[in-house]
């Protein structure tokens, strides 16, 4: 067997990271923003059936950017993880922090051992009830995990979207209507054209809902909200 050429670990990791970043930047952005009743997730998504935002558990939602097949796999695994924990222990023992750690471990191991890293960036968000704070975790392709405050952006030209949200941040969380408007303007900053409401995928984690807090907003709901 011929010896493979030597490649320094630094070079290998850098190549992998560049490859993954390129894949993630190709897509469109997704925003998670705290609003007065919880967290709103907004994505620029022309498909109405292939979702980027999904329910995971009572208070937890997931959003994935990058390669669909890869983040879809992670989404399903996360739901299994959450449902198993909830079944084994109790519903209140399922937490975004534990789930984010599992995602981080998986992505980190895949990044360092697999030939091809996963081209994904994901968000795990949890709405706080009974006076608890909301939690927003952003997990990158290499498994690095960030605990975000008030908003987070993944996929596409996330830096530009983040910049817009930072400039337009308010000390108090906005209402759903204002928050969604802000998300739309932020997404339109990086889009080439105006985003019609049917191309907007929106879901909320509303702390005032009974039981499961996750709710999708249909394009009719969004139009009604903006009217």
């Amino acid at each position, binding site marked *: 067997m011929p010896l493979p050429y030597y490649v320094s670990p630094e070079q290998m990791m850098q190549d992998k990271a560049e490859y993954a970043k390129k894949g993630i930047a190709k897509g469109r952005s997704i925003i998670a923003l705290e609003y007065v009743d919880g967290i709103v997730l907004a994505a620029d998504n022309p498909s109405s*059936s292939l*979702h980027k935002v*999904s*329910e*995971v558990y009572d208070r937890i939602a997931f959003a994935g950017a990058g390669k669909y097949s890869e983040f879809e*796999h*992670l989404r*399903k*695994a*996360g*739901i*299994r*993880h959450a*449902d*198993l924990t*909830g*079944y*084994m222990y109790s519903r209140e023992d399922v937490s975004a922090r534990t789930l984010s750690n*599992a*995602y981080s*471990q*998986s992505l980190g*191991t*895949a990044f360092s*051992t*697999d030939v091809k890293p996963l081209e994904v960036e994901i968000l795990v968000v949890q709405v706080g009830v009974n006076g608890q704070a909301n939690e927003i975790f952003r997990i990158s392709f290499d498994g690095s995990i960030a605990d975000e405050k008030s908003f987070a952006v993944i996929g596409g030209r996330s830096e530009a979207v983040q910049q817009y949200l930072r400039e337009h941040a308010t000390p108090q969380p906005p209402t759903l209507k204002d928050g969604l408007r802000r998300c739309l303007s932020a997404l339109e900053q990086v889009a080439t054209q105006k985003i019609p409401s049917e191309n907007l995928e929106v879901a909320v984690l509303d702390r005032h809902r009974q039981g499961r807090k996750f709710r999708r907003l249909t394009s009719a709901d969004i139009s009604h909200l903006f009217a």
Partner: protein
Amino acid sequence: MQKPRLRCSKNFRPDCDHHMNPMSFLPHHDGSSFFDFLTQHHPELRPGLQDISMQRAALPVDLVRPGTIPVPHGTTVLALKYRDGAIIAGDRRATEGFQIADRRIEKVFRIDEYSAMAIAGAAGPCIEMAKLFQTELEHYEKLEGVQLSCEGKANKLGQMVKANLPMVFQGLVVMPLYVGYDLKRQEGRIFKYDITGGRYEESDHHSIGSGGKDARNTMREHYRLGLDEENAIRVALLALYNAADEDVGTGGPDLVRGIYPTAKIVSGAGITDVPETRVRALYETMIAERRRS
């Protein structure tokens, strides 16, 4: 190059590359069924006895003699259709032989937005099945993005009853009564089961448990097609009252402790609990009519 193989500590499959898989921090499974996921990857969490074949010699149930197949003892739970859906109700008593084990046990469970089930049989496995069925439907909905059809949910429950068959031979029967609102047909539907998982749809009303026959008799007399909500609840509560009158395993309204049967309304608007005050008021009228002065 030979891939290093580690023996998986969990189920001792020598070819299992559990530990080599970077996704091993997250559970992997193909398919959208939580029940199948548990069966394959966490058999210790699945309801039922796994090593049943070892104990075949000591079966407490003699299948050769007729009439020895165990049936649920104690309990009356019932379901009946009304104009906008169906009512599902049950008594609150759990028994251990001739002793009362629990006076306020819940036998009617909300499963998801449009379905509920009531159970008769061994309390432990019954509650476990209800919990697993809840998780199963929610799991499917989250993975697939859509709810199962009413028919699909009823069939899935049948498979779970079938998987419980080894437990039946140990005397631990779980017998569900399933009520779902069919969004396509816009009507409530009632399904009953047998111990082998056989699934049978009832057209108007049904009741199971030791007092089931008495409740069925009452419902047969008082049931009318297209009952309104108030009258449907009244028939359900009357059937439970009569069953408690005839059957020791069924608890009637306990006026001293303030324990009343529970009922849920399954309709296009979702599942709603019948508030205890409403149940109490209906029973008070019913009892006042019967009281000898």
